[in-house]
Protein backbone atom coordinates (compact mmCIF):
# COMPACT_ATOMS: atom_id res chain seq x y z
CA UNK A 1 0.00 0.00 0.00
CA UNK A 2 1.10 3.58 -0.60
CA UNK A 3 0.57 6.34 1.93
CA UNK A 4 1.50 9.85 0.83
CA UNK A 5 4.14 8.51 -1.60
CA UNK A 6 5.61 6.29 1.07
CA UNK A 7 5.41 2.58 0.26
CA UNK A 8 4.17 0.48 3.17
CA UNK A 9 4.38 -3.31 3.15
CA UNK A 10 1.57 -5.19 4.83
CA UNK A 11 3.38 -7.44 7.29
CA UNK A 12 0.37 -8.85 9.13
CA UNK A 13 -3.36 -8.96 8.53
CA UNK A 14 -6.29 -10.67 10.16
CA UNK A 15 -10.04 -9.98 10.48
CA UNK A 16 -9.47 -7.19 12.97
CA UNK A 17 -6.20 -5.46 12.18
CA UNK A 18 -3.64 -4.71 9.50
CA UNK A 19 0.03 -4.02 10.19
CA UNK A 20 2.01 -2.06 7.58
CA UNK A 21 5.69 -1.21 7.68
CA UNK A 22 7.91 1.31 5.98
CA UNK A 23 11.58 0.53 6.40
CA UNK A 24 12.81 3.97 5.33
CA UNK A 25 10.78 5.65 8.08
CA UNK A 26 11.11 2.71 10.50
CA UNK A 27 7.37 3.09 10.98
CA UNK A 28 4.63 0.58 11.70
CA UNK A 29 1.01 1.50 11.16
CA UNK A 30 -1.51 -0.64 13.01
CA UNK A 31 -4.97 -0.13 11.58
CA UNK A 32 -8.04 -1.38 13.42
CA UNK A 33 -10.31 -2.79 10.74
CA UNK A 34 -13.25 -3.68 12.96
CA UNK A 35 -15.40 -1.96 15.56
CA UNK A 36 -14.10 -4.26 18.28
CA UNK A 37 -10.96 -6.37 18.67
CA UNK A 38 -11.30 -9.31 21.09
CA UNK A 39 -8.55 -9.22 23.70
CA UNK A 40 -6.99 -12.46 22.48
CA UNK A 41 -6.69 -11.13 18.92
CA UNK A 42 -5.51 -7.78 20.23
CA UNK A 43 -2.65 -9.37 22.16
CA UNK A 44 -1.81 -11.58 19.17
CA UNK A 45 -1.22 -8.68 16.79
CA UNK A 46 0.70 -6.60 19.31
CA UNK A 47 2.89 -9.55 20.26
CA UNK A 48 3.55 -9.91 16.56
CA UNK A 49 4.80 -6.30 16.54
CA UNK A 50 7.01 -7.12 19.48
CA UNK A 51 8.54 -10.02 17.59
CA UNK A 52 8.79 -7.96 14.43
CA UNK A 53 10.82 -5.40 16.39
CA UNK A 54 13.48 -8.07 16.96
CA UNK A 55 14.26 -8.20 13.27
CA UNK A 56 13.20 -4.79 11.98
CA UNK A 57 13.85 -1.36 13.34
CA UNK A 58 10.69 0.37 14.60
CA UNK A 59 11.10 3.99 15.60
CA UNK A 60 7.50 5.11 15.10
CA UNK A 61 4.30 3.25 15.82
CA UNK A 62 0.94 4.54 14.62
CA UNK A 63 -2.24 3.05 16.04
CA UNK A 64 -5.19 4.04 13.86
CA UNK A 65 -8.30 3.40 15.96
CA UNK A 66 -10.76 5.24 13.77
CA UNK A 67 -12.82 2.13 13.07
CA UNK A 68 -13.05 1.13 16.71
CA UNK A 69 -16.29 1.73 18.59
CA UNK A 70 -15.40 -0.05 21.82
CA UNK A 71 -12.57 0.90 24.13
CA UNK A 72 -11.78 -2.35 25.92
CA UNK A 73 -10.18 -1.51 29.24
CA UNK A 74 -8.37 -4.82 29.97
CA UNK A 75 -6.82 -4.72 26.47
CA UNK A 76 -5.74 -1.14 26.95
CA UNK A 77 -4.33 -1.86 30.39
CA UNK A 78 -2.19 -4.63 28.93
CA UNK A 79 -1.22 -2.38 26.00
CA UNK A 80 -0.13 0.47 28.31
CA UNK A 81 1.34 -1.38 31.26
CA UNK A 82 2.96 -4.37 29.58
CA UNK A 83 3.36 -3.94 25.85
CA UNK A 84 4.56 -0.34 25.65
CA UNK A 85 7.29 -0.69 28.31
CA UNK A 86 8.55 -3.88 26.58
CA UNK A 87 8.67 -2.10 23.22
CA UNK A 88 10.38 0.85 24.89
CA UNK A 89 13.21 -1.49 25.84
CA UNK A 90 13.41 -2.40 22.15
CA UNK A 91 13.81 1.25 21.20
CA UNK A 92 10.23 2.15 20.29
CA UNK A 93 9.30 5.34 22.16
CA UNK A 94 7.36 7.34 19.60
CA UNK A 95 3.67 6.47 19.46
CA UNK A 96 1.02 8.20 17.39
CA UNK A 97 -2.69 7.62 17.82
CA UNK A 98 -5.70 8.42 15.72
CA UNK A 99 -9.06 8.28 17.47
CA UNK A 100 -12.51 8.15 15.88
CA UNK A 101 -14.11 11.60 15.70
CA UNK A 102 -16.53 10.69 18.46
CA UNK A 103 -16.51 12.74 21.68
CA UNK A 104 -17.85 9.83 23.75
CA UNK A 105 -15.02 7.60 22.52
CA UNK A 106 -12.42 10.23 23.46
CA UNK A 107 -14.04 10.47 26.90
CA UNK A 108 -13.91 6.67 27.25
CA UNK A 109 -10.18 6.75 26.38
CA UNK A 110 -9.66 9.53 28.94
CA UNK A 111 -11.53 7.52 31.60
CA UNK A 112 -9.56 4.38 30.79
CA UNK A 113 -6.19 6.15 30.86
CA UNK A 114 -7.11 7.85 34.13
CA UNK A 115 -7.80 4.44 35.70
CA UNK A 116 -4.55 2.99 34.33
CA UNK A 117 -2.45 5.87 35.65
CA UNK A 118 -4.17 5.65 39.02
CA UNK A 119 -3.26 1.98 39.21
CA UNK A 120 0.29 2.10 37.79
CA UNK A 121 1.34 5.64 38.66
CA UNK A 122 1.72 8.76 36.53
CA UNK A 123 5.28 7.85 35.56
CA UNK A 124 4.14 4.68 33.78
CA UNK A 125 4.89 6.15 30.38
CA UNK A 126 7.96 8.19 31.28
CA UNK A 127 10.28 8.31 28.30
CA UNK A 128 7.50 7.37 25.88
CA UNK A 129 6.13 10.04 23.55
CA UNK A 130 2.44 9.76 22.74
CA UNK A 131 0.99 12.14 20.18
CA UNK A 132 -2.61 12.28 19.00
CA UNK A 133 -2.92 13.03 15.31
CA UNK A 134 -5.86 13.45 12.92
CA UNK A 135 -4.62 11.35 10.02
CA UNK A 136 -1.69 9.36 8.68
CA UNK A 137 -1.37 11.86 5.82
CA UNK A 138 -0.88 14.67 8.33
CA UNK A 139 1.90 12.72 10.08
CA UNK A 140 3.69 11.71 6.90
CA UNK A 141 3.54 15.28 5.66
CA UNK A 142 5.51 16.29 8.77
CA UNK A 143 8.09 13.59 8.03
CA UNK A 144 8.34 14.87 4.49
CA UNK A 145 9.00 18.41 5.71
CA UNK A 146 11.61 17.23 8.18
CA UNK A 147 13.18 14.84 5.70
Amino acid at each position, binding site marked *: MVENNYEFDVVYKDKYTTLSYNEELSMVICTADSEYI*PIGEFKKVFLYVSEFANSSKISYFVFDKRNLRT*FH*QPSMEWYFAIWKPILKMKGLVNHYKILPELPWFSK*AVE*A*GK*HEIFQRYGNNLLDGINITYINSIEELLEKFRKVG
Partner: protein
Amino acid sequence: MEDISYYLEELEAKDDMLARTTNYLSQIQSSIIEKNLHLNELQKGISDSINFAKLIQTSLLPDVSILKVFFKDAAFKIFQKIGIGGDTVFIKNTNSGVVFCLLDASGHGVSGSMLSISGTLILNDIISSIEIDDPAVILKFLNYRLHQTFKNDKNSIANFDGTVFCYSSINNRLSYSSARGKGFLIDSRNDIISLENTKVSIGENLNSNFNTCNISFEKGNKLILFTDGLIDQFGGDHNKKYSTSRLKKLLSNNTGKTASELTEIISDEYLSWKGDGSQTDDVSFKVIEF
Protein backbone atom coordinates in the same frame (compact mmCIF):
# COMPACT_ATOMS: atom_id res chain seq x y z
CA MET B 1 -19.79 -13.21 9.79
CA GLU B 2 -18.54 -13.35 13.38
CA ASP B 3 -19.75 -16.05 15.74
CA ILE B 4 -21.99 -15.25 18.67
CA SER B 5 -19.10 -15.24 21.18
CA TYR B 6 -17.55 -12.24 19.39
CA TYR B 7 -20.72 -10.19 19.75
CA LEU B 8 -21.18 -11.30 23.35
CA GLU B 9 -17.63 -10.21 24.19
CA GLU B 10 -18.10 -6.92 22.32
CA LEU B 11 -21.35 -6.30 24.20
CA GLU B 12 -19.66 -7.03 27.50
CA ALA B 13 -16.79 -4.72 26.57
CA LYS B 14 -19.24 -1.96 25.65
CA ASP B 15 -21.06 -2.37 28.99
CA ASP B 16 -17.73 -2.24 30.80
CA MET B 17 -16.63 0.86 28.83
CA LEU B 18 -19.93 2.59 29.60
CA ALA B 19 -19.72 1.76 33.30
CA ARG B 20 -16.09 2.92 33.61
CA THR B 21 -16.73 6.12 31.66
CA THR B 22 -19.86 6.89 33.69
CA ASN B 23 -17.94 6.30 36.89
CA TYR B 24 -15.10 8.55 35.69
CA LEU B 25 -17.50 11.32 34.70
CA SER B 26 -19.27 10.99 38.08
CA GLN B 27 -15.91 11.38 39.81
CA ILE B 28 -15.24 14.53 37.78
CA GLN B 29 -18.72 15.83 38.55
CA SER B 30 -18.24 15.18 42.28
CA SER B 31 -14.87 16.89 42.16
CA ILE B 32 -16.40 19.93 40.43
CA ILE B 33 -19.23 20.06 42.99
CA GLU B 34 -16.68 19.84 45.82
CA LYS B 35 -14.54 22.60 44.28
CA ASN B 36 -17.62 24.76 43.76
CA LEU B 37 -18.58 24.35 47.40
CA HIS B 38 -15.05 25.30 48.42
CA LEU B 39 -15.11 28.32 46.09
CA ASN B 40 -18.50 29.36 47.47
CA GLU B 41 -17.11 29.18 51.01
CA LEU B 42 -14.07 31.22 49.95
CA GLN B 43 -16.28 33.73 48.15
CA LYS B 44 -18.52 34.08 51.20
CA GLY B 45 -15.49 34.64 53.43
CA ILE B 46 -14.10 37.28 51.09
CA SER B 47 -17.51 38.87 50.62
CA ASP B 48 -18.15 39.05 54.39
CA SER B 49 -14.70 40.53 54.91
CA ILE B 50 -15.21 43.15 52.20
CA ASN B 51 -18.67 44.05 53.53
CA PHE B 52 -17.22 44.63 56.98
CA ALA B 53 -14.29 46.58 55.52
CA LYS B 54 -16.83 48.68 53.59
CA LEU B 55 -18.61 49.45 56.83
CA ILE B 56 -15.30 50.54 58.39
CA GLN B 57 -14.30 52.69 55.41
CA THR B 58 -17.74 54.29 55.14
CA SER B 59 -17.83 55.06 58.86
CA LEU B 60 -14.58 57.00 58.48
CA LEU B 61 -16.07 59.32 55.85
CA PRO B 62 -16.64 62.87 57.10
CA ASP B 63 -19.96 64.53 57.73
CA VAL B 64 -20.68 66.79 54.76
CA SER B 65 -22.69 69.11 57.00
CA ILE B 66 -19.36 70.56 58.22
CA LEU B 67 -19.04 72.17 54.79
CA LYS B 68 -22.62 73.45 54.91
CA VAL B 69 -21.65 75.59 57.90
CA PHE B 70 -19.41 77.60 55.56
CA PHE B 71 -21.04 77.16 52.17
CA LYS B 72 -24.61 77.17 50.83
CA ASP B 73 -24.68 73.50 49.90
CA ALA B 74 -22.31 70.58 49.53
CA ALA B 75 -22.62 66.90 48.66
CA PHE B 76 -20.41 64.02 47.57
CA LYS B 77 -20.70 60.48 46.26
CA ILE B 78 -18.24 57.61 46.19
CA PHE B 79 -18.58 54.48 44.07
CA GLN B 80 -15.75 52.15 45.03
CA LYS B 81 -15.08 49.49 42.42
CA ILE B 82 -15.60 46.56 44.79
CA GLY B 83 -17.35 48.24 47.69
CA ILE B 84 -14.07 49.36 49.22
CA GLY B 85 -11.40 51.31 47.40
CA GLY B 86 -8.90 54.11 47.11
CA ASP B 87 -11.16 57.14 46.69
CA THR B 88 -11.87 59.17 49.78
CA VAL B 89 -13.22 62.48 50.94
CA PHE B 90 -11.67 64.51 53.76
CA ILE B 91 -13.29 67.41 55.60
CA LYS B 92 -11.97 68.89 58.83
CA ASN B 93 -12.68 72.02 60.79
CA THR B 94 -9.74 74.27 61.58
CA ASN B 95 -9.46 77.25 63.90
CA SER B 96 -10.08 79.61 61.01
CA GLY B 97 -12.38 77.57 58.77
CA VAL B 98 -12.25 74.24 57.07
CA VAL B 99 -9.87 72.03 55.09
CA PHE B 100 -11.40 69.67 52.56
CA CYS B 101 -10.19 67.48 49.76
CA LEU B 102 -10.92 64.60 47.44
CA LEU B 103 -8.18 61.96 47.23
CA ASP B 104 -7.58 59.03 44.90
CA ALA B 105 -5.07 56.51 46.26
CA SER B 106 -3.01 54.33 43.95
CA GLY B 107 -4.70 50.98 43.37
CA HIS B 108 -8.23 50.05 44.23
CA GLY B 109 -10.00 47.34 46.19
CA VAL B 110 -8.34 46.17 49.39
CA SER B 111 -4.97 47.85 48.76
CA GLY B 112 -6.62 51.10 47.68
CA SER B 113 -8.80 51.17 50.79
CA MET B 114 -5.82 50.55 53.08
CA LEU B 115 -3.97 53.44 51.46
CA SER B 116 -6.93 55.78 51.49
CA ILE B 117 -7.59 55.12 55.18
CA SER B 118 -3.90 55.56 56.01
CA GLY B 119 -3.75 58.75 53.93
CA THR B 120 -6.80 60.16 55.64
CA LEU B 121 -5.39 59.42 59.10
CA ILE B 122 -2.04 60.99 58.20
CA LEU B 123 -3.78 64.05 56.77
CA ASN B 124 -5.93 64.33 59.88
CA ASP B 125 -2.80 64.10 62.03
CA ILE B 126 -1.04 66.82 60.03
CA ILE B 127 -3.97 69.23 60.25
CA SER B 128 -4.58 68.49 63.92
CA SER B 129 -0.91 68.99 64.88
CA ILE B 130 -0.21 72.38 63.39
CA GLU B 131 -2.38 75.17 62.09
CA ILE B 132 -1.62 75.36 58.37
CA ASP B 133 -3.62 77.57 56.09
CA ASP B 134 -1.52 76.99 52.98
CA PRO B 135 -2.76 73.92 51.01
CA ALA B 136 0.59 73.51 49.22
CA VAL B 137 2.28 73.15 52.61
CA ILE B 138 -0.31 70.54 53.61
CA LEU B 139 0.52 68.58 50.43
CA LYS B 140 4.22 68.95 51.12
CA PHE B 141 3.73 67.54 54.63
CA LEU B 142 1.52 64.73 53.34
CA ASN B 143 4.08 63.94 50.65
CA TYR B 144 6.83 63.74 53.27
CA ARG B 145 4.78 61.65 55.70
CA LEU B 146 3.79 59.17 52.95
CA HIS B 147 7.45 58.73 52.06
CA GLN B 148 8.36 58.28 55.70
CA THR B 149 5.48 55.91 56.54
CA PHE B 150 5.50 53.71 53.46
CA LYS B 151 9.23 53.89 52.67
CA ASN B 152 8.27 55.17 49.24
CA ASP B 153 11.91 55.60 48.19
CA LYS B 154 12.16 51.82 48.02
CA ASN B 155 8.68 50.77 46.93
CA SER B 156 6.70 53.81 45.78
CA ILE B 157 3.50 52.13 46.85
CA ALA B 158 1.61 54.99 48.45
CA ASN B 159 0.65 57.69 45.96
CA PHE B 160 -2.37 59.94 45.94
CA ASP B 161 -3.90 62.20 43.34
CA GLY B 162 -6.07 64.94 44.70
CA THR B 163 -6.72 68.54 45.60
CA VAL B 164 -6.62 70.10 49.07
CA PHE B 165 -8.65 73.24 49.80
CA CYS B 166 -8.24 75.61 52.72
CA TYR B 167 -11.08 77.98 53.47
CA SER B 168 -10.71 80.77 55.97
CA SER B 169 -13.98 82.19 57.23
CA ILE B 170 -12.05 85.09 58.79
CA ASN B 171 -11.15 86.63 55.44
CA ASN B 172 -13.47 84.54 53.22
CA ARG B 173 -10.41 83.27 51.38
CA LEU B 174 -10.36 79.96 49.52
CA SER B 175 -7.12 78.49 48.25
CA TYR B 176 -6.17 75.13 46.89
CA SER B 177 -3.23 73.00 45.87
CA SER B 178 -3.63 70.13 43.49
CA ALA B 179 -1.46 67.11 42.74
CA ARG B 180 -2.96 65.66 39.58
CA GLY B 181 -6.36 66.44 41.03
CA LYS B 182 -9.33 67.17 38.82
CA GLY B 183 -11.90 69.86 39.27
CA PHE B 184 -13.90 72.75 37.83
CA LEU B 185 -15.26 76.03 39.06
CA ILE B 186 -18.55 77.17 37.55
CA ASP B 187 -18.45 80.96 37.83
CA SER B 188 -21.17 83.63 37.73
CA ARG B 189 -21.17 83.67 33.92
CA ASN B 190 -21.62 79.87 33.98
CA ASP B 191 -18.14 79.44 32.51
CA ILE B 192 -16.53 76.15 33.49
CA ILE B 193 -12.97 76.81 34.57
CA SER B 194 -10.51 73.95 35.11
CA LEU B 195 -8.52 74.02 38.31
CA GLU B 196 -4.75 74.13 37.94
CA ASN B 197 -2.77 71.15 39.13
CA THR B 198 0.80 69.95 39.56
CA LYS B 199 1.56 66.97 37.33
CA VAL B 200 2.99 64.89 40.12
CA SER B 201 1.22 62.64 42.61
CA ILE B 202 1.49 63.09 46.37
CA GLY B 203 4.04 60.56 47.62
CA GLU B 204 5.67 60.14 44.22
CA ASN B 205 8.77 62.20 44.85
CA LEU B 206 10.11 63.36 48.21
CA ASN B 207 11.31 66.65 46.73
CA SER B 208 8.11 67.58 44.94
CA ASN B 209 6.83 71.10 45.26
CA PHE B 210 3.17 72.00 45.06
CA ASN B 211 1.59 75.34 44.20
CA THR B 212 -1.09 77.24 46.02
CA CYS B 213 -3.79 78.96 43.98
CA ASN B 214 -6.45 81.31 45.25
CA ILE B 215 -10.02 81.08 44.04
CA SER B 216 -12.18 84.13 43.72
CA PHE B 217 -15.75 83.00 44.06
CA GLU B 218 -19.12 84.62 44.28
CA LYS B 219 -22.38 83.49 45.73
CA GLY B 220 -23.90 80.73 43.62
CA ASN B 221 -20.56 79.63 42.08
CA LYS B 222 -19.92 75.91 42.26
CA LEU B 223 -16.87 73.83 42.75
CA ILE B 224 -16.87 70.33 41.24
CA LEU B 225 -14.13 67.90 42.24
CA PHE B 226 -13.87 64.42 40.77
CA THR B 227 -11.46 61.51 40.42
CA ASP B 228 -10.30 60.12 37.09
CA GLY B 229 -12.57 57.06 37.51
CA LEU B 230 -15.51 59.25 36.49
CA ILE B 231 -14.15 60.43 33.15
CA ASP B 232 -12.33 57.14 32.44
CA GLN B 233 -15.47 55.01 32.82
CA PHE B 234 -16.18 53.00 29.68
CA GLY B 235 -19.78 52.83 28.52
CA GLY B 236 -22.40 54.48 26.37
CA ASP B 237 -23.57 53.13 23.02
CA HIS B 238 -20.04 52.63 21.70
CA ASN B 239 -18.29 51.61 24.94
CA LYS B 240 -16.14 54.76 25.04
CA LYS B 241 -14.67 56.68 27.95
CA TYR B 242 -17.10 59.13 29.52
CA SER B 243 -14.47 61.90 29.08
CA THR B 244 -14.00 65.42 30.41
CA SER B 245 -15.92 66.96 27.51
CA ARG B 246 -19.09 64.98 28.32
CA LEU B 247 -18.79 65.98 31.97
CA LYS B 248 -18.39 69.64 31.02
CA LYS B 249 -21.45 69.42 28.77
CA LEU B 250 -23.47 67.86 31.60
CA LEU B 251 -22.39 70.62 33.97
CA SER B 252 -23.14 73.41 31.48
CA ASN B 253 -26.65 71.97 31.01
CA ASN B 254 -27.25 72.02 34.76
CA THR B 255 -25.69 75.23 36.01
CA GLY B 256 -28.84 76.27 37.87
CA LYS B 257 -28.97 73.19 40.07
CA THR B 258 -27.97 73.08 43.70
CA ALA B 259 -24.89 71.14 44.80
CA SER B 260 -27.04 68.30 46.07
CA GLU B 261 -29.08 68.17 42.85
CA LEU B 262 -25.95 68.33 40.72
CA THR B 263 -24.39 65.47 42.69
CA GLU B 264 -27.45 63.33 41.97
CA ILE B 265 -27.39 64.34 38.29
CA ILE B 266 -23.69 63.36 37.94
CA SER B 267 -24.43 60.13 39.80
CA ASP B 268 -27.36 59.22 37.51
CA GLU B 269 -25.33 60.13 34.42
CA TYR B 270 -22.40 58.00 35.58
CA LEU B 271 -24.58 54.95 36.31
CA SER B 272 -26.42 55.37 33.03
CA TRP B 273 -23.13 55.66 31.09
CA LYS B 274 -21.71 52.58 32.78
CA GLY B 275 -24.92 50.61 32.21
CA ASP B 276 -24.39 46.89 32.70
CA GLY B 277 -20.66 47.22 31.98
CA SER B 278 -18.01 46.73 34.62
CA GLN B 279 -16.74 49.65 36.68
CA THR B 280 -13.39 50.84 35.33
CA ASP B 281 -12.01 52.40 38.53
CA ASP B 282 -13.09 53.83 41.86
CA VAL B 283 -15.24 56.89 41.24
CA SER B 284 -15.95 59.86 43.46
CA PHE B 285 -17.08 63.44 43.09
CA LYS B 286 -17.90 66.33 45.34
CA VAL B 287 -19.91 69.47 44.60
CA ILE B 288 -19.81 72.65 46.69
CA GLU B 289 -22.05 75.63 46.15
CA PHE B 290 -20.85 78.95 47.55
